[in-house]
């Protein structure tokens, strides 16, 4: 007999493996690796026959299975030292499967709760309710959604050039400005104080370049070998107006 396997039935290679173990009534703690490998590869082969793009993740587990199989085929080494018994090559995979199964079961419990909970209905949000001045309630997800939405709109409108800079640069820009607000001017090299990682150094440098480009800071070098000094051109927020360059 044959059973039909639909790829979409499985959430991934571990799920497929659990299915094969279950349908063959195999003890998960004592998996016949040769047999299960054969079945698993058979599934993959059929996916490929159908010209499917077999996800790399499925192949990773296939390689793991083959590796375990080959290890198990090797004759047990004459354990001369023989303190610890040879570890079962299947151990790691079994542990992964058990852990995955635990969460799969948990997800089924959650699914159950979901359908019960969906029998309850809430009152719809009242659009007429006035804007309150209580404590602010905004989630980061909302912020991210807002940003994606506005950026997508901006791209469509194509009125603004958006470079995929990372936030680190913006953060460094603000940090540099904040620093210059208290110590102005500052030696170029001092801007990198405390920047321990390579990416932080790069971000700081890119931030400085961006500030220079926008004219928010200037850099000066009195002689060719001399120290570069950076100073802030914008007005400090706290200071009196008109104090700036």
């Amino acid at each position, binding site marked *: 007999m044959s059973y039909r396997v639909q790829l979409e039935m499985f959430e991934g290679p571990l799920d497929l493996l659990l299915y094969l173990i279950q349908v063959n009534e195999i003890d998960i703690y004592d998996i016949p690796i040769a047999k299960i490998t054969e079945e698993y590869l058979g599934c993959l082969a059929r996916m490929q026959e159908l010209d499917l793009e077999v996800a790399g993740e499925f192949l990773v587990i296939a390689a793991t299975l083959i590796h375990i199989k080959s290890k198990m085929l090797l004759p047990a080494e004459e354990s001369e030292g023989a303190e610890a018994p040879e570890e079962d090559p299947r151990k790691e995979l079994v542990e992964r499967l058990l852990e995955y199964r635990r969460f799969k079961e948990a997800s089924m419990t959650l699914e159950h709760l979901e359908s019960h909970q969906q029998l309850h209905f809430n009152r719809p949000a009242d659009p007429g309710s006035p804007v309150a001045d209580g*404590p602010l309630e905004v989630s980061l997800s909302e912020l*991210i959604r807002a940003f*994606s939405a506005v950026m997508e709109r901006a791209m469509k409108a194509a009125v603004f050039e958006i470079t995929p800079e990372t936030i680190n640069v*913006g953060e460094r*820009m603000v940090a540099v400005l904040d620093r210059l607000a208290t110590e102005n001017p500052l030696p170029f090299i001092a801007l990198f104080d405390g920047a321990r990682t390579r990416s932080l150094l790069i971000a700081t440098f890119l931030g400085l370049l961006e500030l220079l480009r926008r004219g*928010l800071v200037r850099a000066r070098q009195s002689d060719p070998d001399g120290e570069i000094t950076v100073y802030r051109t914008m007005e400090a927020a706290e200071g009196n107006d008109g104090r700036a360059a």
Partner: protein
Amino acid sequence: MAELPDPNPLAILEALLFVSEAPVTLERFAEVLEGCSKGEITKLLADWQERCRQEDRGVLPIEVAGGYRLVTKPELAPWVQRFRGTKAAKLSKAAMETLAIIAYKQPITKPEIEAIRGVMTDGVLKTLVERDLIRILGRKPEVGRPILYGTSRAFLEYFGFKDLSELPTLKEIEALAPNVAEKEASQSEVEVDDTSNAK
């Protein structure tokens, strides 16, 4: 669902009015409560209204233009107002977008924000400053010397960040932003021979 013993029609009426956004007409009630005539429903609503006038009830159904709706009793208005006054405030869509732009593009001026959003932003910036989510970093040395905005310490604290580098990066947002249809599995079927079992 028709086979199940029907719950009390009054209970159904209350549930429907509770979940409804707009007044519910008698016709609509009659559609959902198969087997109840409009006359019967009118009678049910009148009885229910009477019962809701009891002093330990907070809500009652009233007849308004176009149907029935649930409202809180007028004498409870002071408590409802006090309650609403302390309710958590949400940022408007405009405020949210502006805050997001400032978070990711700071230091940034108002004209720059408006160029991205495509609309004016005046009131919103005031709100955000009042809410202490953004701060003025200084002024840009160009014509008009526009104010440069950035996020505040309160902003970081609010979202639980130690510093701005903890904000999700644009790349991470791209991965999280909900606009691409998910679904990775393919729909094709595969036949697996079970003969390997027989060996």
